[in-house]
């Protein structure tokens, strides 16, 4: 009889998962998510407008750039008319916006005449692939080093970590890339030459996203995948090591603070195992580290451009730099808008994630 009663009690106990996602929570959460989502179009509109005016008001002569150095003034005027650059800026803005809103079109490249969206889909996935790989390295190395530094604060391992942070922050990322190419490809010969995402004589078939490593894995082309992986190591390592310094710095300070906190002291005073105490400290430090990672993720869409160029990665950042140098206005506008949109989405996801991770953040 008693055991029956006991079993009833067990069944009545809510498991943590059930009660944390209560109907109430779901309702509040969806309301919050909807509000945040509703904000996105307005923000995108602002980003688009700003990008349009920044690009178009900066003194430049796209028509002369396109017509070439030897073109006569009449030729330039013809190109100008053909590109619509002879119209006043409000007219162009109205044109641009109506095209975007009715056809979803960002216009066509002044040079290739390809739709801007097509180039976005062609180049953006490769950059995202590189960013993801880099951030995995940066997080693992950085948080690991930061934890070691915090644990051995002001002792020898901490000095090593701090030296690592200072040195990697002082070296520009493209130089770090060249150094790795020199040492690991040229001297040691462990990894292939910086020819982009695959070897010069490999021609990826059936591209889905044009991010070669991702595509080859999805397609099950294992030989290509191996090659793509070995081509990805050096650029990812370059960005990974470079940005791990920032992670290490953040992690060292937030985990250090967590180690000194009352919370960790109380946990230790109760005789919790070291592993669990470390877990308490990590959970405390989690939100700042995730926030940091998200900001970096968004910033690297353009921020990886130079490293992409060094490794001929063929990503969106590299493409954008090339377009900027040619004053290919629609492509540049497209790039700014996509980067802005991407940032907005990342921050939205971050906000929602933090709510899930921290019960103290109330939704209202």
């Amino acid at each position, binding site marked *: 009889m008693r055991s029956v009663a006991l079993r009833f009690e067990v069944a009545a106990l809510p498991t943590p998962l059930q*009660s944390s996602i209560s109907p109430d929570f779901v309702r509040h959460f969806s309301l919050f998510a909807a509000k945040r989502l509703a904000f996105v179009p307005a923000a995108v509109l602002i980003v688009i407008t700003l990008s349009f005016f920044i690009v178009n008001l900066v003194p430049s002569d796209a028509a002369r750039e396109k017509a070439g150095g030897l073109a006569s003034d009449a030729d330039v005027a013809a190109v100008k008319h053909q590109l619509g650059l002879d119209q006043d800026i409000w007219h162009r803005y109205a044109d641009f916006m109506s095209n975007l809103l009715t056809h979803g079109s960002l216009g066509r490249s002044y040079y290739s005449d390809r739709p801007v969206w097509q180039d976005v889909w062609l180049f953006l996935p490769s950059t995202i692939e590189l960013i993801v790989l880099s951030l995995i390295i940066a997080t693992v190395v950085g948080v690991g080093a930061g934890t070691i530094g915090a644990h051995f604060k002001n002792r020898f391992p901490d000095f090593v970590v701090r030296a690592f942070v200072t040195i990697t922050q002082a070296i520009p990322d493209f130089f770090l890339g060249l150094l790795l190419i020199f040492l690991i490809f040229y001297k040691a010969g462990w990894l292939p030459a910086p020819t982009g995402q695959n070897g010069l004589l490999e021609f990826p078939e059936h591209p889905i996203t044009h991010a070669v490593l991702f595509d080859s894995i999805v397609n099950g082309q294992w030989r290509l995948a191996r090659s793509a992986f070995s081509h990805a190591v050096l650029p990812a390592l370059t960005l990974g090591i470079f940005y791990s310094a920032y992670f290490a710095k953040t992690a060292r300070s937030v985990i250090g603070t967590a180690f000194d906190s*009352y919370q960790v*002291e*109380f946990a230790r005073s*109760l005789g919790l195992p070291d592993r669990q105490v470390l877990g308490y400290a990590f959970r405390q430090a989690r939100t700042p580290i995730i926030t940091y990672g998200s900001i970096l993720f968004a910033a690297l869409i353009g921020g990886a451009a130079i490293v992409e160029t060094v490794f001929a990665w063929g990503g969106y950042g590299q493409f954008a730099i090339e377009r900027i140098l040619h004053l290919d206005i629609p492509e540049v506008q497209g790039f700014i808008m996509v980067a802005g949109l991407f940032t907005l989405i990342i921050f939205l996801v971050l906000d929602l994630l933090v709510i899930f991770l921290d*019960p103290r953040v109330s939704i209202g």
Partner: protein
Amino acid sequence: MANDVTQPLLEVKDLHTRFHTHRGIVQAVNGISFGIREGELVGLVGETGCGKSVTARSVLGLVRPPGRIAEGRITYDGIDLRSLSRREFRKLRGTGISFVPQNPWGALNPILRIERQFRNVIRAHTDASRQECWDMSLAMLQKVGIQGPERILKGYAHQLSGGMAQRVVMAIALVLNPRLVIADEPTTGLDVTIQRQILDMVMQLLEEERRAMLLVTHDLGVVAQYCHRVIVMYAGKIVEEGPVSEVFVEPAHPYTQALLAAIPRPGHKLVSLRGRVPSLIDYPAGCPFHDRCDFAFEPCSAEEPLLCELSTGRRSACHLSKGVSELDAR
């Protein structure tokens, strides 16, 4: 088990805890000795920076670099704590000696349910099932006077009021029935009524179950009301020790007298102590209190007075009280 009068539950002998900072070595605790018997409630008082919290942490083995216990012997129930391995010491914390920290919200984990925090502690030391953990936590919360403990267990720390949070922290610290509880300013920051309620409850609980407590505080009123014995620290040393009934009525050390005089009382002028606490890096010669003492005479600046016994269980470190006790003895 040795728990008779001659063998205290906790015995600290000649403890030195130092902090190695870039400005020099800070002698936070400078050769103190004391004991706590089974079931005894001992108050450890002194002003900020006198080494009372460091003493508490030294006993718990929670002194973190750059701090370190340089010398001394700490025995709990006949076990030499400094000879324990990390693992052995960890097993003792929470089960034998446990700790109630100053800031309850800071001490509780903000993202784990209270239930889970109890369970982590219980499971760190026992093989209790989930249900057993729940029952133990529930019983303990009821003991510390929490109504509707189920709701508290399912909630988070930020949903608790200050008084509730402190009760929960105490319940977690007491859940495995430790024989010695070290509390560091457990009720600072709570308003006086709640402070009173919590202390009434927890002290009664400790007395009933014959658990010992080292209560670190600067609140002399709390010590006077709840403790059996009081230890007064000044600049890393014990200056006076004895039963509360004697020390508060007839303090032997000028510092204790000054502390008691500094308690605000209606109708009395508030007395404040002149001068400042000596540097713990450049330790002064002679008595650490001599330049603030109204009774200082020649030997005070030259020779450090040793802690000597005035009567049974009553000690004071002052040239004057030494003289008095020697005179008494003649």
